[in-house]
């Protein structure tokens, strides 16, 4: 895609998700999203760099639990797959999928959702930002 490297705003739960519509509608939505993503006013996030995020995700072996597109060998089945993460409505089924929520979640999951199995891996703020940036490239 032409927009590789840029990061688009996450889909908020209020938006209609593409897979909920019919074929044509889905296509139209996809196009809209594509345009939105590649438009000239992308909300460039200041929280991280997706390329660095890729390395963070590899370093912390997130792939041991998650299937993550673009990360070598990330095929874990313990946690949910992260393909299309940018279009997810929720994080861990309870948090809204917004950058600030994701950042907090990545830094300390149990603090956000008490019963989660995902441990706090000790990501720094910078690392969490980069990882989040990468995750938002997964459309």
């Amino acid at each position, binding site marked *: 895609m032409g927009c590789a490297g840029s990061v688009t705003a996450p889909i908020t739960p209020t938006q209609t998700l593409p897979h909920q519509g019919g074929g044509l509608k889905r296509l139209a939505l996809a196009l809209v999203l594509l345009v939105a993503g590649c438009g000239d006013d992308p909300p460039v996030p200041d929280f991280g760099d997706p390329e660095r995020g890729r390395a963070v995700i*590899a370093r912390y072996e997130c792939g041991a639990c998650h299937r993550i597109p673009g990360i*070598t*060998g990330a*095929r874990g089945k313990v946690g949910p797959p992260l393909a299309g993460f940018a279009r997810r409505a929720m994080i861990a089924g309870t948090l809204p999928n917004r950058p600030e929520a994701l950042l907090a979640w990545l830094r300390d999951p149990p603090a956000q959702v008490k019963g989660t199995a995902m441990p706090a891996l000790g990501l720094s703020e910078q690392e969490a930002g980069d990882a989040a940036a990468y995750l938002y490239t997964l459309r």
Partner: protein
Amino acid sequence: MSRLPDPRPRPPEELEQLQEVWRQPGGWRLASAVNNTYVGVFYIGTALLFFVLAGILALLLRIQLAVPENDFLSQATYNQVFTMHGTMMMFLFAVPAVEAMGVYLLPNMQAARDLPFPRLSAYAFWAYAVGGLAFFCSLFFGLAPDGGWFMYPPLTSSEHSPGHNTDFWLLGIGFIEISAIAGAIEILVGVLRTRAPGMTLDKLPIYSWAMLVFAVMIVFGFPAVILGTALLEIERSFHWPFFIAEKGGDPLLWQHLFWFFGHPEVYIIFLPAAGFVSMILPTMCGTRLVAHRWVVLALVATGFIAFGVWVHHMFTTGLPKLSLSFFSAASMAVAVPSGIQVFAWIATIAKGRLRLTVPSLFVLGFLAIFTLGGLTGVMVAMVPFDGQTHDTFFVVAHFHYVLIGGMVFPLFAAFYYWAPTASRRALSERLGKWCFGLMFVGFNIAFFPQHVAGLMGMPRRVWTYPAELGWGWINMTSTVGAFILGLGALVFLIDLARNFRPFTGGNAGNVWNAGTLEWLPGGNYATRSIPIVTSLEPLWDQPDLAREVDEGRYYLPGAPTGRRETIVTSAIAAEPQYLMQMPGPGWPAVLAAWFTAAFFLLLTVKLVTPAMVCGVIALALVLRWMWDTDLGPAHPPVDIGGGIVLPVNCSGPMSHSWWAVVVLILVAGAVFASLLFSYFFLWTVSPDVWPAATGQALPGAEWPLAAAALLVLSSALVWWAGRRLEADGHWSVRLGLAAAAVALAAALAAELAGQRATGLSPTDSGYGAVVYMMAALQGLFVATLGIMALYTLARSLAGLLHRHRRATFDNTMLLWHYAVGQGLIALAVVHFGPRVL
């Protein structure tokens, strides 16, 4: 001999009769053909099929390795696929392919009408084709072997590989063992005894030399793996602990047996290919091979020294460094003959004027690739260097350079070179150049980087690797190269489909202006008449030879006895000795192969009763096929032309069947020697399970003495029966044979009873296992000779055995004396051994 070529006109009906006698069956009956020009082509085609299948497996492996941490193939699938790739390439492609080329080419090159045992060729081919395909299909059921192509126990023991997968490997190898030995006997006797008159060893084509060494190497090399696979299967099925360390076996015994075969195996594959090159280059350069005798010497020397390098596959097993160094030295020695050949070829190119045809290109590609493979071979022969590169991709690269460079490229050269002798059209030079270019470039892109991968620490047989080791780009390059190589092979298949037209009764003729006899015009019967050979390249030295041969002006221009026949010649001087009658198309050998295949397959999946039924049917079919052999002097002596009158068929030491039995005995002797080695090897590593340490009682001296006496008696009875046969004393012969069989069986029973009386069981320890294995091997001979005795009796009762028709008896007698000798040595070792060691 001076009266040839005979200028007189030939009788008009002669050619017609020759054609009629050698006519092939049409339609589906084609499968019953036994003639080398048919079976040879089937055989080569099947080998090529396995090359393609195993090549596809290789591409799957390369896709999996292209990027780090890939999951294109699962771990379990990858392990099966690499095992199958190696096993199929070595056992179902390489050995059969060179053997098949031999079956196809040798008779033509030596102007014989066929190899001496056409039905044996057919049997070997069908057993291989049916067994090989069944073996391949095990992949689709997840039953394919997954222990690597050299199947090291204890990974392949019943404890660590409880499934049928390993049994399928043993089955697949069983077939190749059968067909390789059968082929070796055929080729050895064929090269030595069915040559054109005058084709002395000096004038023997270099390819025949290569095949002679090839066959001898199979005779001495395969027995080690035959015994090894037998021991492993017996351990898996009956728990005789040959390789189980806790019970006094040793996993290293397998490695010795396997590599004693496995290293010569590489040369078994390479020498025939070197033979191709030494045939093709002189033609393409229009000149004789430089240093011809040195090239022959190199072939023979390689054949010997190849047996002294097996331990260099075991440099990292912890053997004493001094022991390793002996084999390091031997590995250096085996490189020397290859050097001679390479420079002889270069000198030949320089001497002549090389035409850059497709065969030439493949030969040049071979030279480049094989030279590098040889150089890395010297490197891995250095013990310290091997410690780092053994079992890495460096070694993978090395042996692909040696095997693809040393065997596949010459084989493709041979395909392009000799296709015109089998097909109405030659293969395409244009497509062939594409094929070569893609294969050469693809090969080097695929395999050169693997040296680097190995030097970066990548072990072989890994289904995945971590990204951070930095092996990704190398593997991706290699994968791209593999696909280019595959594309080259595909171009070849397209060329075959477009241009290869065999079995049409005609061929494209001597398109390269070659000098050797396979380029003589002819049909199924080979050449119309069989020339006197006076030089290495008769077609160059006698410009009219082709025409004269085709006009029937030389030996045996027709089929004087009304059957298929060929001239049997003496081994050195190639003087005509007798005329051998040969069988035509027939089903017994073909069906016997099918039932043999069914027997092994059913046994593998433990369907014992149906397996036994198939086994008995196969045996019956083999006996049925044998029944038509040993024809005796079925026809009065025949004038083959040139003033030579030859007897028809023959018994005794001059007969081709006697030579075949001698070769078979060499095989049996090598199996037995491997077993003796196993005995002493296990004693060396595990003296703690030997009677001296365990206090295990030994059978009293009366048992082995009784057994020995019975063995000697049995031999004496057979010898006496042979004397009586000379006087046509039929009842004495029958009684003598029957009594000898009883004595032979009784000797075995005495040995078993003696061992049983001490309470020793084969499952106790490595010692018990190897002691009973000696008896088991003897038991195999008792059973075989029992059947042969019954068969000889039956022939005697049917009136087919008498003074002048006694090859059946002679062959049985020969094997009998061997079995007695083997039994005596076994008794001495088993009973003296523990007392003195």
